[in-house]
């Protein structure tokens, strides 16, 4: 382990800033066949709802230039199963704390999920997803209005006593800074950003949508500049840590994201394309830091603003 990669996310010291993003890494153990997942900074676990969900009809995946659209729709086995089965299985192979991603269709559901996650030893951060583009009535609708974002954050913060609460923001908004500020004002301990961008693809031969739900969340290297811009804007406006997400596929992208203001990063779509990507980034970072004359990652957070 390289000490120079350590970052402090609030009071939590991560061995490195690399965290696989929710929804692209399951509950971790699928990746044990490829490498020892304990090299990761942490893992953001699959978005969890109170009740089990199958999610959306298939096809759920469409390829794009430098990215992909998914419309999985929060498929997950439900809060009880996640806590009693998935977290236990994960704890057998992963010995660090996780970022527990929760979602809901009402404020009450977010509150219940967050409250239960607050009592789990394995949970380091509760990540409240108010930005899923793939579910109706809920998900993103809480993340596109500052007032609704404030209310969810406040309600969750009122019941969560132990763990830091991070709010995962949607880029599908006019002013992400206003949403981030509302979350901070409501007591959020940090911001995760960005979730996917809404997108569509159509079949050239049939003219029909490729995704059964027509629209889905676009992610992959193509969205990196959007994520960098938004992290930069939000870093300027808030005083809580940011986990930078969106289009990261290599060590260089991690450095850029940290310059923009991220304390840690999440890697999403790239895990689907290359199951080894997180390992490759962690191994490449020290070398890249030498090339760029960077001593520690902690010291480059927000460098773009200096």
């Amino acid at each position, binding site marked *: 382990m390289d000490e120079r990669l350590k970052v402090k996310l609030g009071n939590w010291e991560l061995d490195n800033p690399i965290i696989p993003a929710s929804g*692209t890494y*399951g509950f971790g153990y699928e990746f044990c066949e490829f490498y020892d997942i304990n090299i990761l900074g942490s893992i953001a676990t699959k978005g969890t709802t109170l009740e089990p969900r*199958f999610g959306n009809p298939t096809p*759920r*995946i*469409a390829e794009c230039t430098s990215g992909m659209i998914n419309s999985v729709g929060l498929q997950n086995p439900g809060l009880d199963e996640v806590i009693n089965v998935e977290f236990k299985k994960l704890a057998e192979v992963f010995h660090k704390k996780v970022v527990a991603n929760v979602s809901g269709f009402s404020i009450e559901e977010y509150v219940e999920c967050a409250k239960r996650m607050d009592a789990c030893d394995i949970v380091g951060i509760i990540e409240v997803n108010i930005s899923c583009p793939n579910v109706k009535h809920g998900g993103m609708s809480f993340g596109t209005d500052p007032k609704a974002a404030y209310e969810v954050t406040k309600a969750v913060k009122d019941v969560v006593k132990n763990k830091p609460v991070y709010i995962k923001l949607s880029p599908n908004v006019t002013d992400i800074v206003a949403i981030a500020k509302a979350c901070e004002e409501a007591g959020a301990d940090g911001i995760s950003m960005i979730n996917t961008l809404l997108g569509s693809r159509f079949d050239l031969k049939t003219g029909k949508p490729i995704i059964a739900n027509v629209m889905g969340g676009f992610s992959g290297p193509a969205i990196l500049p959007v994520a960098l811009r938004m992290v930069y804007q939000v870093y300027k406006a808030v005083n809580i840590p940011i986990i930078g997400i969106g289009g990261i596929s290599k060590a260089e992208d991690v450095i850029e994201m940290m310059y923009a203001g991220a304390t840690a990063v999440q890697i999403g779509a790239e895990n689907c394309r290359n199951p080894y990507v997180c390992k490759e980034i962690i191994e490449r970072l020290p070398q890249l830091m030498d090339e760029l004359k960077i001593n520690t990652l902690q010291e480059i957070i927000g460098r773009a603003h200096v």
Partner: protein
Amino acid sequence: MKSIQNYEVLSNEYLALDIYKMVLKGDSSWITNPGQFVNITIENAYLKRPISICDWDENSITIIYKVVGFGTKQLSQKKVGDVIECLVGLGNGYDIENINEPVLVVGGGVGVPPIYGLAKSLVKKGVDVTAILAFNGQENAFYLKEFEDLGVKLHVCTMDGSLGTKGFASDVMKNENLCDMLYMVCGNVPMMQSVFKASNHNGLLSFEERMGCGFGACMGCSCKTLTGYKRICKEGPVMKSEEILWTKD
């Protein structure tokens, strides 16, 4: 065991309309069952392309694929000696370990390749194999000789009647009294559904879906079954007829 491996193209030949056969030199030790697949890296494409294994020996794997778009078009242009990268060790495949009774294998179109590996494995075990190969027409047909060489009882049918019997695989089943056999099928959904309905026996069916990762992480290819939600790439692609949600009528 899943891993990323490089394979050298030994041959890449045209078999039938839009259908190509590629033999790749490299590791086959990960193959535990016929019907498993590889996920092939394509230059300038974001996602890999899942293609089933048709045949293998100690030092090579054979895939047969249909050119349907950008990715498979590129595959068809690969030359002998080119190297392609594959994520291997994917899918459950057909579990034939405890199969001793006669088996009806049914392949439709580009569903024929995994059925070849399956038939070959069954024959090797000493199982009595009857095969139905179904194509749209003669121009789409391939691998008839290879199936004949396995020594299986072979039936061929086409939609337009240009080769073999005119009609569906399920018509052949009815006409040849094959409806009471254990069946193993791979093809498009309407074809597999007609086999499922025509049969009085249980069977194994191999499904296809647009995939994100191919190894169970993204939930992109999930389906509902009587035994819960399954990922086509991980718990599948082969499902038991007892667990799928279709009805006989």
